[in-house]
Structures are given as structure tokens and as C-alpha cells.
């Protein structure tokens, strides 16, 4: 807490002095409130067992961001360009349903100071960033999932020479709050430190033929090491007790290459983690590996993409006893499509960090030009996309498990996008999915589902647009068939009235056959956005980038406000 107070005092003094400076000073920030007044017994949604829940009628996630920017154009010896001070206050003592227990809390979630120079920048405080694709280190914030895995420490990024980019960082990782442990008004962090180094070499800056042929070629490498004091972790075997001999240092490295040019983008990335015994991988000492391969081509009206990913035992955390969403250092790309239609997103995929997987994804997108037989008067876009994820035959093996139990996820869909007339847009989707509930959710069947979606958007007048969609999901497993519909009326580009409805029409026991619906009004004025309405949503996984959070069924009045400046 003393650190936070000192930091704020320094920033206030600095801001005051800046007012007298000749250079540019501006303030940016934002306010976000997402709230729910549940109509059910609120204790059903308690997140932390020690949070005081008496007399609470309102759940909410609240964020206040504030950043002060100072920019200078004056020349100076160290090529200083400016500095930014960032602060974020979070008040999530009674958060929305479905977050991990540690998420409940309040305090200053972010404090950082960043100095920009001509050659790079230096940051101290809570730092974010990623190395390469993030398969070794990805420090980010995602409010929907409740993820904030920043490091409190320092980061320096420099362009050491034309085309050589270096990054060094180190710190302790944030892990939610500690206000229920010792009553502090600050954030909880890992006991020990994480260090990282990254280098990118832009070879096209030095190799003339590459420049002449407009080809960008980049080689890169990263190293991440975490230091952790050995815990006393015991294991009984045949009636005798043993203690794990745990490594203090766990190191991980990666190499990558990427080539871009003439519409092509080809990338390969490999990462290796030395022995990293954790609770999550059942104290396994075997190394972890990841290989990413990606090739894509795009030009006007046509694009194609093919990707493959292998991963095994690649969960890197700052603390070996941490599980759940918090405390993860890396983020493996999910290689499955993210859907926005509700029924298409009922079965989202969650990356298997420990048991490993082979994931394949391919996509072809083609737009028939206007005034052609297939394109019609305004053009037609067709996208065929497929993703398939399978397990590994054995631990540490590169072989694919082609048995029935090795099917983790499949997504094959065809999407059509067409402008029918000046005022009418059409979008249609047909999809086939397989979803291994046992692997992804911990229990259940192999679900095979088909989804069909039809969406229309009609511009009734210059200021009124009506969008409607109907969806149907068919499956013989899990809860059976679903239907859904949505209606959205956009008025004067500032008011939106939305109504959504879902119903489980087959398979589930009668008490689960309920109507789920929402009715919302949203008002937008410049940087302000206010939304209010009534919602009743079904339980399900909320996923982003392969990281998922289970949201329970919710019902109540919803209120949201956003303002950024």
C-alpha cells in the first residue's frame, strides 16, 4: 500500500509540474460498470466464501482507468519523447456471477510509468506484453474472463540497431487480490519472480534482395525463466513419505521465423520448457513443447489460410501450486473459430495445456465481384472454414490419437455474406461441430451438433436499421435441440433496442426446458454508452482465446455504462 500511495503522490506532483511545461499533456481514461440486479437469491452467485454477502442486492464489475500522457518534441541527449502514467482502480467486491473466488476484491489493479525514447521505451510498475505469438509469455487483461496476469516489475524495449529489437522484463505476477487474506487494499502477487528476454531480427532491413522484392523476413527468439523457492510438497508411496525435489529455476525458450510478402504470410514457431513440475500437470518433470505452423495468402477478393499446432505439457505458471485462470504466463493460440452467434458458441473449445493436442485449421474466403453471375449486383462473399483438434496418443508423444476418444473438437462451417439490395444484407451460416465434453468440461459425452443461422439486416430509413436472426441447433447428445431468435432495432445511430430468445426444445429433462431471453436498450452518445434491460441467460462457457470461464444461469436486471475519453 505504501508503494501505491507514493506512486500516486509522485504522479500528482509530476502532473502539476507538467502544467507549466510547454509540451503536450493530455489525459485519457475510461469508466466501466457492468451490473446485475438478480431476481434470484443472490447468495447463489457468491464468488468468494469470505466476502460479506449480507444486504447485497447488486452484483457488479467496476473499472476506472486513468492515464496522463506527456509528449515532447524537444531534442535532448537521451532522445526522450514522452512519458505516460497509467492507473486503474477496480471495485469487484461482489462481482458478476461465474468468476473465480480470488477475483472478488477491490483495489488499485494497475500502476505503471512508461518513458518513451526514440530508440524504445522503459516501463516500471505493472507491465503487459507478449513474446512472439505468446506461447511462452503473454501478459494481458481480459475483463470478460477476469484475467489480469501482468507482472509488477520493469520492462525495457529497445531497437538496438536498425532491425534488431530487444526486450527485457522481470517482475512478480499478479494473482487477483489479497484483501480477504490480510485486509490489504492491494493486489496479490506471486511469491517469486519471472524474467524474460526477447530478440527480433528484421533481416529484410539488411538483405537488399529481400527489400527489392518487398519481402519481410523476421527471425526471433525468446527466453522466459521463473524463479520459485522449493515448496515442501509430499507424496506418499506404499506407506512411505517422499518429498519432491523441485527446481528453483524453470527455463523455457522459443525460436520463430516469419516471412511476409506479395500477399503471403508464412510463420513457424517452436517452444520448449524444461522440467516444470506443477500441481496442474500432476508434478510431472517431463519437458513441454509447442510447434506452430501457419501459412496464408490474401489478395483482394480471395484469402486462404492453413495452420497446425502441436502442444504437450505447455502450461507455464508463476507458481507451481496455482490452478485455474489466474497465474498463467503463456497463452497458446486456440486454432478454432470464435463465433458470435449464440447457438454456434454453445460448445466453445478450451485449449488443453497439459494433456496436449494437435490442432488443425484451414479457411478459404472468396468474394465474387459485382455484376457477375455468382456475385450478383453487389458481390457475394463465401467463406469455408474448418478446425479439428485431436489428443496425443501418449504423454510426450508426437503421434495423433486417431481413436474415438482422441476427438477433442471439430468445427466445419460455411458462411455466406451477400448484399441483396441497397437496403438489405443477408448472412447465412451452416455448421457441423463435434465437442468432447469430458475433455473440455471434465465430464460428459462426445457431442455432435449441426447449427444453421440466417441473419438479415434491413435499412428501413437513413436512421433506422432492423436486424433479425434465427438459429437452430440439432444434436442427439447433451441437452438436445435449441432454437434462438434475435431482433435488433437501431434508431438514429444512437439508440439500439435488442431482444433475444433461446429455447431448449429437445432432450433435456423438463425442468431444464426453459425460455432464456433478454431485452435491452442501449444509448450511445459520443464516448458514452449506457445499456439497461432484463436478462435470463443459460449456463455455459464464456471463452476467449481458448481460455474459458463457466458462467452459471443468471436472471435479473442488467445495467452497463461505459465512458472513454
Amino acid at each position, binding site marked *: 500500500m505504501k508503494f501505491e500511495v507514493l506512486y500516486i503522490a509522485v504522479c500528482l506532483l509530476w502532473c502539476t509540474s507538467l502544467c507549466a511545461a510547454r509540451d503536450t499533456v493530455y489525459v485519457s481514461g475510461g469508466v466501466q460498470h457492468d451490473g446485475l440486479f438478480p431476481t434470484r437469491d443472490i447468495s447463489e452467485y457468491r464468488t468468494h466464501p469470505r466476502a460479506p454477502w449480507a444486504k447485497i442486492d447488486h452484483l457488479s464489475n467496476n473499472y476506472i482507468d486513468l492515464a496522463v500522457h506527456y509528449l515532447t518534441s524537444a531534442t535532448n541527449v537521451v532522445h526522450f519523447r514522452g512519458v505516460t502514467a497509467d492507473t486503474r482502480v477496480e471495485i469487484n467486491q461482489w462481482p458478476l456471477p461465474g468468476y473465480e473466488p480470488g477475483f472478488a476484491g477491490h483495489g488499485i489493479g494497475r500502476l505503471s510509468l512508461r518513458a518513451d525514447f526514440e530508440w524504445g521505451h522503459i516501463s516500471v510498475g505493472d507491465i503487459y506484453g507478449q513474446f512472439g505469438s505468446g506461447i511462452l509469455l503473454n501478459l494481458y487483461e481480459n475483463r470478460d474472463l477476469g484475467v489480469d496476469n501482468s507482472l509488477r516489475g520493469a520492462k525495457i524495449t529497445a531497437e538496438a540497431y536498425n532491425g534488431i529489437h530487444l526486450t527485457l522484463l522481470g517482475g512478480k505476477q499478479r494473482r487477483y487480490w489479497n484483501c480477504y487474506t490480510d485486509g490489504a487494499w492491494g493486489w496479490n502477487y506471486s511469491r517469486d519472480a519471472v524474467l524474460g*528476454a526477447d530478440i527480433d531480427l528484421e533481416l529484410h532491413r539488411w538483405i537488399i534482395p529481400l527489400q527489392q522484392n518487398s519481402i519481410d523476413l523476421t527471425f526471433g527468439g525468446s527466453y522466459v525463466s521463473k524463479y520459485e523457492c522449493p515448496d515442501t510438497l509430499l507424496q506418499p*508411496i506404499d506407506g512411505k513419505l*517422499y518429498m519432491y525435489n523441485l527446481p528453483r529455476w524453470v527455463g523455457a525458450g522459443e525460436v520463430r521465423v516469419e516471412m511476409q510478402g506479395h500477399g503471403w504470410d508464412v510463420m513457424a514457431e517452436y517452444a520448449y520448457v524444461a522440467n516444470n513440475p506443477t500441481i496442474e500437470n500432476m508434478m510431472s518433470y517431463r519437458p513441454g513443447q509447442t510447434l506452430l505452423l501457419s501459412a496464408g495468402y490474401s489478395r483482394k477478393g480471395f484469402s486462404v489460410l492453413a495452420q497446425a499446432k502441436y502442444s504437450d505439457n505447455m502450461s507455464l505458471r508463476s507458481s507451481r501450486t496455482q490452478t485455474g485462470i489466474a497465474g498463467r504466463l503463456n497463452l497458446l493460440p486456440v486454432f478454432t473459430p470464435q463465433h458470435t452467434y449464440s447457438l454456434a458458441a454453445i460448445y466453445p473449445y478450451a485449449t488443453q495445456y497439459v494433456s496436449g493436442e494437435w490442432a488443425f485449421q484451414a479457411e478459404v474466403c472468396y468474394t465474387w465481384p459485382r455484376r457477375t453471375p455468382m456475385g450478383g449486383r453487389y458481390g457475394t462473399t463465401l467463406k469455408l472454414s474448418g478446425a479439428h483438434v485431436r489428443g496425443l496418443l501418449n504423454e510426450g508423444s508426437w503421434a495423433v490419437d486417431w481413436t474415438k476418444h482422441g476427438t477433442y473438437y471439430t468445427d466445419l462451417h460455411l458462411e455466406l455474406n451477400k448484399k441483396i439490395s441497397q437496403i438489405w444484407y443477408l448472412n447465412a451460416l451452416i455448421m457441423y461441430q463435434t465437442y468432447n465434453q469430458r475433455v473440455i468440461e471434465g465430464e460428459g459425452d462426445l457431442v455432435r451438433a449441426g447449427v444453421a443461422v440466417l441473419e438479415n439486416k434491413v435499412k428501413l430509413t437513413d436512421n433506422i436499421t432492423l436486424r433479425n436472426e434465427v438459429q437452430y441447433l440439432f444434436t442427439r447428445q447433451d441437452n438436445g435441440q435449441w432454437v434462438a431468435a434475435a431482433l435488433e432495432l437501431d434508431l438514429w445511430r444512437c439508440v439500439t433496442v435488442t431482444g433475444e430468445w433461446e429455447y431448449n426444445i429437445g432432450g433435456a429433462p423438463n425442468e431444464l426446458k426453459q425460455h432464456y431471453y433478454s431485452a435491452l436498450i442501449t444509448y450511445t452518445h459520443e464516448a458514452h454508452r449506457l445499456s439497461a434491460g432484463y436478462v435470463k441467460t443459460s449456463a455455459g462457457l464464456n471463452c476467449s482465446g481458448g481460455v474459458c470461464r463457466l458462467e452459471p444461469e443468471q436472471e435479473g436486471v442488467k445495467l452497463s455504462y461505459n465512458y472513454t475519453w
Partner: protein
Amino acid sequence: MVSAKYKISVFSRRLSAASVLLSVLCLCVLNGCEVINEGERLIPVPQPAITDGRNHVLIEFTGFRCVNCPKASEAADELSRTYGDRLITVAMHPATNPFTRGAEQYDYTCTAADTYYLHLGGLATTPFPAGNIDLQTETDGSMIDYPLWATWVAEQMEQTGMVQLTADAALQPETRQLTVRAHCYAMQPMSLQLATWLVEDSVAGAQALPDGSVDTQYYHRHMLRGTIGDEWGENVIAQLQPDEYVVTGKLPEGCDPKHCYAVVVAMDDNKTIINALQLRIE
């Protein structure tokens, strides 16, 4: 027009900075990794001294849909072999968690399991297997992953008991009435709650396994079937010459008396178990 001298100056400064950063990177590479060879990964530790003292209860939250719960059950069995009678394991199937959902014939839930699960902060979204020692809620997060059970139990075993229990249990086969008589001894008078749990071993049923199959001949161990009397027990005074605590209740239908046993637990004001005793039913 930038002079050559300025360019060289910038280049050399940047190269110096690059050298420093690269040196640090090399240091990371050389020192930031420690590999433990295969034969050195487990270090024997002195075996725990089994003395008369406080007994502990390992509560295992489990469900027939939980594919990793058989491994947790094996871990609990290993701990029982290590600590003998000083560690009592009880498996609870709370209905509020989806891992216990299933067809009627596989319903191993009971209201007592729900009560203790909610008391420990268990949610519908809590992943299984999860465990707890002695119904403790002081630490931030009362549910413990099973690889940590051995460490937690070892820490608790170092504590001495302030309360001693003696008890016996008798069953009338015709009426299935179970009577438990207990005494609580303490050097200084202490008020505590005394509860009696009914536990059944080797319950034949179904269990989902990690390979996706369901074993329909699985034997569930130490399953909590309910409580005799109130779930939080009755108030008793532990002292040098205590009163007799007597509780009577009926065995639930479906319980096989041959596999049943009673666990008498003594709890303090925080509802933490401070001693326990496992009784064969005579």
C-alpha cells in the same frame, strides 16, 4: 544533414545498449534453468511418528462424473496407508455440483454433503476432485487440489489434540436403529459440537474414467451417507468427567450395515474438526 560523427555516436551508443541487453539475456540462459535428473526427483523423508493424539478428517469432494476422482481416491488411500487410524477419509457427493449429476441409480448425494460443501465455499463451478482437511476455512480457498493433500495432511499431523474421544456404536439389525455413545475428555472444560457421520465403504456403482469409459462395477470408498442427528451436531462440554453423548438414528435404505461405520467428529466454534473417531458398528 546528419553528420557521420553523429551517426557513429548513435550507432555505438545503441550497440553498447544492445551489448548490455544481450549479456543479460545470456545470463538468463546460463542460469535460468535447473534440470533435476530422474533418480533425484523424490527424496525420502522421515516417517511420521504415529502417536496417540488428534485424529484428522480428509474430506474428498467427488462425483461419479468426475473422471479424475478415481486418482484422487487412490491418493487418499495412500495417505490412509501412511497415517493409519490418525487419518479418516470421507468422500462426499454434493448435489449442488454438476459432477454428481446422473441417473437415479447413481445418486450418491446427501443433504449433509451439500451442507458441508456450501460451508467450505463450494460452488456449482468448483472443479473436482477437491478436498479439505478438518472442515477448515481459515485459509483463502478451502478447496485443495489432490496433489497437495499429502502436504496439507502432514502439516496438520504435527498438531496435538486438546480433546480426546471415546465412543462405541451399536446397531439393531431388525429395526436398523444405530446408537452411538461418546465421551469427550479435556483438561479444561470446553464447549464443542459433537456430530456423528454415517459412512459406507465399497459402494458398488458407476464411475466415469479418464479414458472416457464408465466403469459400472466401481467400488466407491468411504462415502458419506448422512448424519445421525443434526449435521452440525449437538453442543457438549468436554471435561475430565464428561457426560455421555448419545444419539440414535436409522440407517438409510440401501446402506449395507456390513460396510458401514460411524465417524464421530468434535467441532469447535468455527465448525472446524478438532478431533474425530472412526467406529466399527457392532
